[in-house]
């Protein structure tokens, strides 16, 4: 009897002890991220000069005029002045996109070199391989630099395309100002509120209501929201939650709200519902990749059960993967650098060789095991776990005060 009790204790520690252990682990994780954040901040204080030199064709000498602005010369003598190179900044998917923009004395853009970005590599490669950067050469600072108007964006990488175009506009205007050319104040960006935002808000509302115990037709409605999520948030707009969108928060990269309402609704909605309800409506109700796996599970009849012990062990795999990805993203100031999610690989057919392998593996495994990605690889679940532990730690003192006012 005693032996049995001890064995049970070892497998499942008492809630108080488990809670304490969880909190210590969360505190250590946050401390580790903070240390890496500081280390990354020291590392990122680098010069842009190599990119500046590449940006201006023919220039041999550069003088730093101010932060992010360099004058370009033939050989350093006054008559050999060619123009300026300015570092322009645009708001990308993974944080600021920096571009070295060379502007000649007439105010025309003559060279463009990407000086730094936090975009997912596969997406940036797609943009770099396109004609977008070449199409920005020859533009004047007074041009609108708007995707769909005077700039052709890259399908499937609109945010990155827009970030690059706006970074070039920013740089060319900074250089034009220095040249003494008339520069109009940039128009505030238009508020982007369309189908994905409306669908997302509706899905959140249904997900929140559906989580309530008394809600009838839960199964049918959940399938409805999942299929809408799969089609609209997945295949049409490819806009699921990614680890990069959370990592960028830790880096303090808050995107422009006018053009990123969807992002604010998505992250804010999950945090809000989770704080109020302690339930995550996104993963279970309308995550497009979760829906894809459940569709495969219906086809294959997914019944294979993973033993509890193996399942407990595998729980640490996504935690370690997510922590590693966050630390790399924070250190290199590039949220998308270590992204290993395969959402874009399925919905846009963009990804590395490893991502395509994981996608094949996950989709086929979904035929036999229920939601293998969500249970054993997805980095969002550990983030939700972390928020849950913090939430409980914050709530507990309040609960104690309420129960014991003396």
């Amino acid at each position, binding site marked *: 009897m005693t032996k049995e009790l001890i064995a049970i204790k070892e497998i499942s520690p008492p809630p108080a002890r488990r809670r304490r252990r969880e909190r210590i682990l969360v505190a250590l994780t946050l401390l580790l991220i903070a240390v890496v954040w500081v280390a990354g901040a020291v590392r990122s204080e680098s010069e842009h000069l190599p990119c500046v030199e590449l940006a201006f064709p023919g220039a041999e000498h550069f003088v730093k005029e101010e932060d992010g602005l360099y004058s370009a010369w033939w050989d350093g003598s006054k008559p050999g002045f060619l123009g300026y190179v300015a570092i322009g900044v645009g708001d990308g998917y993974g944080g600021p996109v920096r571009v070295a923009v060379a502007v000649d004395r007439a105010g025309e853009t003559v060279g463009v070199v990407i000086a730094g970005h936090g975009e997912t590599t596969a997406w940036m490669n797609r943009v770099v391989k396109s004609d977008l950067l070449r199409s920005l050469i020859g533009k004047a600072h007074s041009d609108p630099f708007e995707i769909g108007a005077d700039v052709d964006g890259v399908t499937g990488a609109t945010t990155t395309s827009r970030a690059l175009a706006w970074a070039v506009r920013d740089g060319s205007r900074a250089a034009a100002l220095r040249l003494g050319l008339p520069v109009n104040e940039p128009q505030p960006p238009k508020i982007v509120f369309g189908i994905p935002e409306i669908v997302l808000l509706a899905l959140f509302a249904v997900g929140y209501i559906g989580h309530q115990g008394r809600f009838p037709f839960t199964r049918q409605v959940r399938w409805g929201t999942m299929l809408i999520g799969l089609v609209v948030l997945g295949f049409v707009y490819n806009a699921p939650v990614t680890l990069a969108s959370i990592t960028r928060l830790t880096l303090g990269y808050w995107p422009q709200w006018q053009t990123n309402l969807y992002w604010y609704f998505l992250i804010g909605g999950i945090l809000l519902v989770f704080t109020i309800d302690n339930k995550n409506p996104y993963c279970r109700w309308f995550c497009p990749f979760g829906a894809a796996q459940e569709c495969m599970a219906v086809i294959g009849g997914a019944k294979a059960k993973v033993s509890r012990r*193996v399942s407990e062990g595998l729980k640490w795999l996504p935690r370690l993967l997510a922590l590693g990805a966050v630390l790399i993203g924070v250190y290199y100031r590039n949220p998308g650098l270590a992204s290993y999610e395969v959402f874009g690989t399925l919905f846009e057919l963009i*990804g590395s060789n490893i991502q*395509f392998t994981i*996608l094949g593996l996950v*989709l*086929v495994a979904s035929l036999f095991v229920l939601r293998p990605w969500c249970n054993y690889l997805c980095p969002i679940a550990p983030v939700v776990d972390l928020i849950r532990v913090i939430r409980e730690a914050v709530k507990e003192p309040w609960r104690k005060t309420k129960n014991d006012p003396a």
Partner: protein
Amino acid sequence: MFNGSLFWFAMGVLFVFVAWAFKTFADDRGWRLNWWKGLLALLWYAILSLSLYAWGTLAGEGEAGAGFKLFLIGLFVCIVFGAGLVRLLIHRPKTQAEPSPQ
């Protein structure tokens, strides 16, 4: 049609079937698999497939000879490691002798 992405996707699909087949084979043979034995089997498969991928990649870069040598080294490691792995998998720990029916 059969571009790089599709090839790697197929490798992922193949991996699931290999793992499934291995589990079924082990069950049929009565091998007692645990997590570390499964991990060793996975490592064996990874060495074998990586050797093949390395050969293919180097051949694509015009270094077929070097790729083939690398593949042979990987194959040698696989044979030695595989022999040890099979012995480990078929090994049954000694248990107390069961009482005779009489």
